[in-house]
């Protein structure tokens, strides 16, 4: 079966060995994989690339602060039913016509395995993960309005990402395989940058990485730049044709692509002046 092979990333997406094994364990045990890590370390892209690598369909469920657990399973469109009943525009007695499957519900109904991404689970209400416990455990649910019982034909691979804004309940955590994406070291970062900029000049890459890691090490940054910012920054450097030598002194070009907070820019500029 195609799911059993080990996941070691794709040509466009590099994973550390730890993350690869965590994905294998999650698929093998049929448990959801909970991925945490700094913003911009590729948590969401993991699911996208896992689906692409295995040729599986991806169901994406973006969580917001108002999202209810049941919306991932199905929604019952009462307003459309009321509208139909008032204007006689459909068969109102058949409630199943007004039931729309959510991302998890659709994944359960597929005859083939799929990847479900529950993105930013920590955005939702505190009780949200608890409401999904049973459904993720047994991969079944019941629609009370119609009495229909939905069971997963093939267990989907569930990937859950969290930015750590809220604590997740213990009962939920216990059922997940957990991985924390560490910030990539220089070696891994070089490989990641090469994937996005295959024809990048060696000197520019070395200079950019040097400047980037030095910037990240600056004390007092509220949001240190991450992988995705580095990749954007290198694009900007190449577009403007910046000389690698310019990256070594104080006053980095396009600082705004790396630092997103005004206070951080101030901190870095103050340090630069002191050194100069």
């Amino acid at each position, binding site marked *: 079966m195609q799911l059993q092979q080990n996941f070691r990333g794709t040509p466009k997406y590099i994973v550390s060995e*730890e993350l690869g094994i965590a994905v294998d364990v999650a698929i093998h045990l049929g448990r959801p994989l909970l991925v945490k890590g700094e913003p911009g370390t590729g948590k969401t892209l993991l699911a996208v690339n896992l689906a692409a690598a295995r040729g599986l369909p991806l169901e994406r469920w973006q969580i917001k602060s108002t999202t209810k657990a049941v919306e991932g399973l199905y929604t019952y469109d009462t307003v459309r039913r009321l509208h139909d009943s008032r204007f006689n525009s459909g068969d109102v007695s058949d409630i199943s016509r007004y039931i729309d499957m959510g991302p998890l519900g659709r994944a359960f109904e597929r005859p083939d395995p799929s990847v479900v991404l529950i993105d930013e689970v920590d955005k939702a209400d505190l009780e949200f993960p608890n409401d999904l416990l049973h459904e993720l455990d047994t991969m079944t649910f019941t629609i009370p309005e119609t009495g229909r019982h939905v069971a997963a034909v093939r267990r989907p691979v569930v990937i859950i990402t969290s930015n750590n804004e809220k604590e997740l309940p213990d009962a939920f955590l*216990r*059922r997940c395989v957990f991985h924390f994406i560490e910030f990539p070291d220089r070696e891994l970062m070089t490989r990641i940058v090469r994937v996005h900029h295959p024809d990048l000049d060696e000197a520019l890459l070395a200079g950019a990485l040097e400047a980037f890691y030095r910037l990240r090490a600056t004390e007092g940054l509220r949001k240190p730049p991450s992988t995705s910012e580095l990749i954007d920054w290198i694009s900007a450097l190449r577009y403007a044709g910046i000389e690698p030598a310019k990256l070594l002194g104080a006053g980095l070009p396009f600082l705004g692509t790396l630092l997103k907070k005004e206070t951080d820019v101030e901190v870095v500029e103050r340090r630069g002046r002191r050194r100069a």
Partner: protein
Amino acid sequence: MFIDFFYALRQRGVPVTTHNWLALVRAVADGLHDQRLDGFYRVARCLCCASEVHYDGFDQAFAQVFRGVVDDSATMLSQLDEYLRDPKKLAYLDPALRAALESLDLEELRRMFEERLAEQRKRHEGGNRWIGTGGTSPFGQGGVHPSGIRMGGQGGGRSALAVADARRFRAYRNDLVLDTRQIASALRKLRKMARRGDDLELDIPETVDATARNCGDLEIAWRPPRKNDVRVLLLMDVGGSMDPFAKLVSQLFSAASAGGGFRELRSYYFHNCVYSRLYEDALFSRGVPTAELIRDLDPSWRVILVGDAYMHPGELMMSSADWWTGTAGPVGLTWLARLADRFPHSAWLNPERPDIWDAPTIAEVRGVFPMFHLSVDGLGEMVSELRRPPQPKRSLHVHALARGENLPHARRSNY
């Protein structure tokens, strides 16, 4: 060894349950660890740790159990025997390593080890014969001989143990205070949601229900919005022995005011101990009588005091000299007790390490307020304490103190 690891994890504060453990046993039985210790490290970590704050404890437990640090050669030899005779444990070794181990006869290995240990009298590093570090002799630490006996410490290469030894996740531990956002996320758990207020919002489920009952004619229902109903009074000690913690306290303050989302937050300053006045600013210029706060705020307020509670015993027992009226006012401890008596949901956050909390004044304050360390862990504990009903025993003690009884007389006699 497997079970030892389980208990070592629990001892290090990694909350593994049999649930995780059975999953790990299943994963290992199915060969997901690839028959390698590195693989086992990775599989075990993703199943046993539910948060990056436990990675450091996991690394420590892993290093402790799978290194087998030994002090004397006798226990080492007996462990070696046991190890080599247990086919289950050998199964966790690399196949190449296992083959190499078999190439060296066990008895021969033991004999050589004893001989060399006897010959060797001083610490040894490098080389290919002596027992020491970094060499290629079969005995020693950090070496590369395939059947080598590790003497504790770090192995070469980036093996699982080297990774565990590096303890790269120390920064994610829960008992360190990191930033404002973490404090805010801990304080947010203090919230208690309630529907209250005048700016109404549309109640959709109720509207749908009412409309359906009304034969489909629209009937709109309103309700007050759901808001945090918790009000917090924050009292902060500034100056003197609190100076080293000034940054921490200001982070706590900004987290509470910006991220707490409380219905109301009031903050006042004091120095060392609360007396008859609290101050609106850290310069102690705008004072507010403590009695007025106690009178005006109702007991539903949550009170959080921040300070090291580390002072001269006299300061705790000192009266704020109500010499104007000629009577000695209540002492500091009484003021603290009055606050605790009026506001049953109160706690003290102490930035000092808990191991010095036995100091007399700190112990006295701990009798009045439950005290917690100003760290992410401590904040979490404080929040759950504030959500619980107060302990009856403490309430009785506090109540007596607030009326000026039960004061420690030995110390009061000095003043």
